[in-house]
């Protein structure tokens, strides 16, 4: 019998090791698995490589990981925001490495990992600083950059509802990186607002099939 539901946030992040590459969902404050990131913080896991679009804001989630010096490297497209004080502080001090990746390439690299591909050529970034040191190939008259897959050891994702097989649906634009990250990690952990019975989610409208999901935990909406 398949039952991916776990009882607590601590159970959800059990076994995540120091040094892990962690994909953290969300775009701005939309779809961020705040409670899972805090559970990782509570667990004490450190030396992380965090892959996420932004670099946290204020004192919560990824910003808190940075504040507590748990992040060795961050891979993201847009680390700067009004409240990204902890990222900026750590970055200026040379305490965190930044790999800046165009947003579409960031998402596509994770998808390549999910899909078992060895990499792809994209026109995005060609002739720019972000392509420095990368293989360039002219395809169909246009310069393309070779980009490698970006897999995670762990993905932390927020969704709206899950069943015991780990099937997921999301809510509005909170979907963002969730489906791709869920598929791109060896261990995928999802926080949801609600558990539903198996069969309650319409098979036509499941966004992330349970095959990509390892653990789901319910977090009461604030």
């Amino acid at each position, binding site marked *: 019998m398949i039952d991916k539901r776990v009882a607590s946030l601590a159970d959800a992040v059990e076994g995540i090791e120091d040094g892990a590459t962690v994909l953290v969902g969300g775009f701005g404050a939309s779809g961020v698995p705040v409670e899972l990131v805090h559970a990782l913080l509570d667990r004490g896991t450190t030396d992380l490589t965090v892959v996420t679009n932004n670099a946290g804001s204020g004192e919560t989630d990824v910003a808190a990981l940075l504040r507590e010096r748990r992040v060795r490297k961050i891979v993201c497209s847009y680390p700067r925001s009004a409240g990204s004080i902890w990222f900026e502080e750590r970055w200026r001090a040379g305490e965190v490495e930044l790999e800046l990746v165009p947003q*579409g390439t960031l998402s596509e690299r994770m998808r390549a990992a999910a899909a078992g591909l060895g990499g792809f050529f994209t026109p995005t970034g060609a002739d720019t600083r972000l392509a420095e040191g990368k293989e360039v190939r002219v395809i169909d008259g246009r310069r393309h950059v070779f980009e490698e897959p970006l897999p995670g050891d762990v993905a932390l994702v927020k969704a709206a509802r899950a069943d015991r097989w780990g099937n997921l649906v999301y809510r509005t634009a909170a*979907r963002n990186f969730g489906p791709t990250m869920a598929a791109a990690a060896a261990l995928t952990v999802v926080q949801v607002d609600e558990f539903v019975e198996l069969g309650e989610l319409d098979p036509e409208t499941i966004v992330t099939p349970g095959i990509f999901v390892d653990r789901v935990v319910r977090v009461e909406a604030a």
Partner: protein
Amino acid sequence: MRLDLRDVARRIARDIPDGAYVNLGIGLPTLVADCVGADKEVVYHSENGILGMGPAPAPGEEDPELINAGKQPVTLLPGGAFFHHTDAFLMMRGGHVDLTVLGAFQVSERGDLANWATDDASHPPAVGGAMDLAVGARRVLVMTTHTTKAGEPKLVPRCTYPLTAAGVVDRVYTDLAVLDVTADGFLVREMVAGLTREDLQGATAARLSFADDVGVLGQRE
């Protein structure tokens, strides 16, 4: 003599065809949406997985998860759809977005765009979806002041700021002129009234050529 940027937005809106799929860059370009007439049905795309964005919600009606690329609350129109980030960028990179309006630090006479980094080493760099939009949208329009606040020209022979993408800009709308990027460099299509060609060239680092029928870029049309 310089146009207000709302008037530049109004001018750009005139060039957006009915039925277009449009992505408006963060900041200034978002002004354009307010200027598109009710006679046109335009579908706005957002990089975080939205097609069919509507206007800002009424105060108190905001959904903190339903935001645009600039992280501001938005609404969804009937016919709108949600999808994941990788599909949102498939749409952008794959040429499915008909048109984008982007801000710029510099545009070169070859259509190179610099709009993501100024080499200010005191701030960490950030790129977001700028490069994907610039290479992927079928038509790339730039909305910008003609010169910087310090009076430096933004239309240049070659960008000195780091490139966003090479050879992608189709047309530039400034507070002084509308210019197409052609194989021969910038071609002025419209200028504000009262400005001479010499004045415009003086505010531009790249060499300008002028269309046979340069139009008047007006305050109100």
